[in-house]
């Protein structure tokens, strides 16, 4: 009897979680949220500093430009007022007030207006292009993740077989060649040399004139136009997933609980999915978030090469036109998108791994 009581007391101590005693900052999800906010704040400040404070900053340049184009009709003060409204910053206020109002506007998603087409808000410009980038990048990333994990698992299970060698060598080859070079080679061979793909018809996010709507023709058209960027994002990441999953699987296979599961007579399929696969995939989920940031950045050049109307292409256009409010807005919003993706990955991770921040505990 005494043993039973002792054992029950043991249950209580073991289940009495540190999380109730410990500080909230140690809680992984809370920490991820704080990190996300901090990242957004840093980017905000950095962008503000770049645009506003740098010597010969875009704001100063714009004022000069306004005065020059008006042939002296505008006084410095008037030009400054126009620039103020363009940048959505009150240029006469002290810096810290400018900064605060910049942040305040940002909280209202007010990013100012585009220089070129006055009256068009930066927010509306971004909303028009962001979905295409998220769609193509998301699809490519997800596909590469699923296929890469499958191949990595397979390669690890057939370690040292021909398949393993082909898959791992291929994976490391493709992941070390820069993705824009792969894109160039794709155009060079499939389009120009062998005429297998008609690039001109694939330009844009969808065929112009086609009525956007939720029907098969339009969805098919969207995929047709996004096919090349998706292929490149897929190829960019596939090698990484294969190699990471392969080595994670190899180390999971060495774990005692896998041996123990075999001893219990579990089927190979169950062991592969719930015991090896699930544990091997866990560390990769966090890498997924980092990949989002990387691919979204790389999207600029890919979208330019394939003339795909996403955020990257818009950013480059803004850069050549020196449309600073748009540049600033795109940086802000992509950072937020990437940060949100990171946060989501952290949350998913904490759901998948019960050892981390499990709320609720063992109910029963």
């Amino acid at each position, binding site marked *: 009897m005494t043993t039973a009581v002792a054992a029950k007391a043991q249950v209580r101590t073991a289940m009495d979680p540190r999380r109730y005693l410990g500080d909230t900052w140690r809680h992984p999800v809370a920490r991820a949220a704080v*990190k*996300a906010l*901090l*990242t957004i704040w*840093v*980017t905000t400040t*950095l*962008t503000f500093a*770049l*645009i506003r404070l*740098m010597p010969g*900053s*875009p704001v100063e340049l714009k004022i000069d430009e306004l005065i020059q184009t008006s042939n002296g009709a505008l006084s410095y003060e008037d030009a400054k007022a126009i620039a103020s409204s363009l940048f959505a910053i009150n240029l006469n206020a002290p810096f810290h007030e400018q900064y605060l109002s910049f942040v305040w506007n940002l909280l209202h998603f007010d990013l100012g207006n585009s220089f070129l087409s006055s009256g068009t808000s930066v927010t509306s410009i971004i909303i028009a292009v962001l979905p295409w980038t998220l769609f193509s990048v998301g699809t490519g990333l997800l596909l590469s993740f699923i296929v890469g994990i499958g191949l990595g698992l397979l390669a690890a299970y057939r*370690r040292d077989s021909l398949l393993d060698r082909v898959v791992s060598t291929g994976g*490391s*080859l493709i*992941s*070390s*060649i*820069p993705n*824009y*070079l792969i894109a*160039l*080679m794709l*155009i*060079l061979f499939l*389009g*120009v*040399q062998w005429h297998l793909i008609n690039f001109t018809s694939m330009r844009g996010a969808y065929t112009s004139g086609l009525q956007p709507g939720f029907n098969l023709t339009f969805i098919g058209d969207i995929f047709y136009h996004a096919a090349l960027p998706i292929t490149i994002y897929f190829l960019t990441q596939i090698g990484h997933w294969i190699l990471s999953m*392969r*080595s994670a699987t*190899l*180390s999971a296979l060495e774990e005692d609980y896998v041996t123990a599961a075999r001893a219990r007579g579990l089927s190979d399929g169950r062991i592969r999915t719930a015991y090896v696969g699930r544990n091997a995939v866990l560390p990769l989920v966090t890498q997924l*978030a*980092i990949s989002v*940031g*990387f691919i*979204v*950045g*790389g999207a*600029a*050049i890919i979208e*330019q*090469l394939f003339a795909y109307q996403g955020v990257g292409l818009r*950013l*480059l256009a803004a*850069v050549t036109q020196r449309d600073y409010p748009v*540049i*600033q807005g*795109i*940086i802000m919003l*992509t*950072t937020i998108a*990437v*940060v949100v993706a*990171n946060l989501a990955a952290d949350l998913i991770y904490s759901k998948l791994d019960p050892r981390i921040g499990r709320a609720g505990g063992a109910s029963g």
Partner: protein
Amino acid sequence: MTTAILARPTTGQRLLGFWLSIVDFLRLLSRRPVGLIGFFGIVFFLLLAFVAPLFVPFQNDPSLADIYQTPSRAHPLGTDFQGKDVLNQIVFGGRDILTVAILAALVSTVIAITFGAIAAIVGGKVDSTILAITDVTLTLPKLILLIAVAAILRPTSFVFLAVILGLLQWSSLLRQIRAQVLSLKERDYVEAARSLDLGIVHIVFREILPTMRSYIAIHFIFAMTEAMYAQVFIVILGLVPVSGSNWGIMLYFAQGQGALFFRDSIWYILSPILAISLVQLSLVSFASALEDIFNPRLRGSA
């Protein structure tokens, strides 16, 4: 114990040790053919970029009669949109790219080592501040930021470009350095050095860094590949004021002049693509082989 460990070897012993470690290293590498190929690839490209230009005359005269020529005896890799020899541009176009990559890797490695070691050794608030900054930098979409920074600051010198690239990529190395230093800190010999009150600088440079040599070397190489990726990226996009000629600028012009869609220009475009890809492949396969040799457990292959 302590005295034996802290005793400094003589210069002769050091040289001998160095030589033996090179011989040892090459023997280990010879068992990993891919790594060995990578090693020779790196040597080849370093020679091509830094030594070959000393022996080959620079040809920079446009010749409109010879544009987009296919490979011939006079132009083994054909000519470009101005009729310039492609092979000549490949020979002269590597130095800048590799210099920037090495410089950027150096900048990021120095930042990572300095602040990683400070975070681990000082600990406390300093540690958590450095870690928080690192975490934030790790999630920033760096290429987007790079586009903006390059567009606004317009870096004209290679050193400036290298510093920008270096500033963007130190975060993951810093975390690993910090973790390594933390675990090394616990080991006896560092304890011994500290008890002798030799100071932080001594502990870092004499006791900790030497044991992390291979580790840092591997990361340096990976940092080079990242810097090269980012550098060619912004060059192709035309965000860096173009001057001179390098593999990235060749691609920028090839794309800008529409040579991409000109069937006969395949060698012209393929040459810089291959040059960059091969350098990247050499670096990665060499670094992976090093990882295999020095941290075999990390890679899980026997």
